[in-house]
């Protein structure tokens, strides 16, 4: 199995269990047909589609990465030397960042849509909330924005498809939890459209293209599917709080173990 075949297998967590329950309630846990099967756009041409609401990623339909990624030598070296404990920012309660927050397949997505902007809210494993702000007001992307986790985005409607370009992404963020990296030159182009799917109802398709001449010899393309889940709710959560609770449990267990050892010696 190549590194990238394993990539969509995310560890179960409390957050995902909640989401899974919700997804089962909404009927989106069923297995799907072939990716992208014959679906008509919901909105007519020239009309922005209604993409507002909660969407749950469908890991079964996540398009596999190419077996041989066109990595530059530098990017390949980083991948081969990847050590999650040292190199994965999420181990330190950092955000997934864009585009990993769209690629991960275990993160519910909430979209807030207004005529002039779209917000994409991602909450990986009920940890810290990540908010992508995407103006759709025709304003241009700034020439050289400061690098941030979610980057700087602009969107435009091409018919009923939302095209989002994102630049200014921190190079220490990962593209995948398996160590696929990018450079500061990364430009992400996404094409988001809504399909009606016989098995799932309303499905949001995100065609994602990663352009980064420093890390990839040619653009890398993939696709993610999100099933509409009107009953689902994103809940607040904080990564540090979970870590603190884990630590308190560990400390308490250690205290009990020490007390037990002491009791054993005194007998």
């Amino acid at each position, binding site marked *: 199995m190549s590194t990238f075949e394993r990539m969509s297998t995310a560890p179960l967590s409390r957050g995902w269990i909640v989401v899974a329950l919700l997804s089962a309630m909404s009927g989106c846990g069923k297995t799907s047909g072939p990716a992208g099967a014959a679906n008509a756009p919901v909105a007519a041409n020239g009309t922005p589609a209604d993409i*507002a609401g909660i969407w749950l990623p469908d890991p079964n339909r996540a398009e596999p990465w190419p077996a041989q990624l066109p990595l530059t030598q530098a990017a390949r070296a980083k991948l081969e030397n990847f050590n999650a404990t*040292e190199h994965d*920012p999420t181990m*330190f*309660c*950092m*955000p997934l960042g864009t585009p990993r927050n769209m690629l991960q397949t275990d993160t519910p997505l909430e979209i*807030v*849509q*207004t005529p002039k*902007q779209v*917000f994409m*809210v991602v909450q990986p494993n009920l940890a*810290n*909330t*990540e*908010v992508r*702000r995407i103006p759709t007001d025709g304003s241009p992307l700034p020439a050289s924005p400061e690098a*941030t*986790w*979610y980057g700087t985005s602009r969107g435009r409607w091409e018919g009923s498809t939302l095209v989002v370009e994102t630049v200014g992404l921190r190079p*220490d963020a990962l593209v995948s939890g398996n160590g696929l990296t990018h450079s500061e030159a990364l430009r992400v182009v996404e094409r988001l459209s809504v399909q009606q799917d016989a098995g799932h109802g309303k499905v949001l398709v995100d065609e994602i293209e990663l352009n980064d001449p420093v890390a990839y010899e040619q653009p890398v393309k993939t696709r993610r599917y999100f099933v509409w889940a009107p009953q689902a709710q994103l*809940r*607040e959560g*904080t*990564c*540090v*709080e979970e*870590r*603190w609770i*884990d*630590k308190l449990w560990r400390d308490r267990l250690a205290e009990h173990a020490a007390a037990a050892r002491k009791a054993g010696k005194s007998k």
Partner: protein
Amino acid sequence: MSTATRTLFLSCALALTAAVTPAATDDATAARPDFSGVWLPNSKESGHWPEQRPFTKKMLELRALWDKTNQPIDFTVDDDHTSCLPYTLPFMLTTITQYPFEIVSTPRRMYVFTEVYGQIRRIDVDAPPPPPDTLPTRTGSSRAHWEGSQLVIETTNIAQENEGSRFPSSPALRVIERLSLQEGGEHGKQIINEVTVQDPQVYEKPVAIRMVYKWAKDVTVSEYVCEQDLWDQHLDGSTSKIPWR
């Protein structure tokens, strides 16, 4: 600036609230303002918590006991905000910070995106009450309705703050906000938020604070990652200061 320093410098916190675009078509609709936009707490015009809060006798005893048991506290280590734990209602509404928040109105729900801690409030308009088994959260469950040109938001299911907290609370905590829009003036427009805190297990009578949020027309709500220092220190090869490891 370290997280701790940054946190100390925020006299802190968040503001909230909301606006809305209801579907009704009666005459009252014309008077309903749209609170959408980016806002900053107005430190000059906003009110404050009373110097002497009307704690119940029982709560005063509990706070004294907590102090006796836990003081002195080293706030450079044992501070919830230094530890990157986000704000809880009503604190996030009534504290003054230099961080903006953005209100986004949609037909059935108003969102409040705050910069500090990247918190989100979701305020459902003319919606049924939250299910009785809803788990408490820092921002609680908010429902709103219009009374003329005022949007009235009621929030319950707010995560409890213990008796040692600066703002202790009980599961009975109920925060009422009455939002109105004030046009004109130095900032173009302002939101007036009449906040009432009801918590009979903590306060003998409701506490009212009048908050003012000024329009921040040219401000964008930016990304905020409280724990950034920890990752930066790791990348720099500094000794790990990660408290939970």
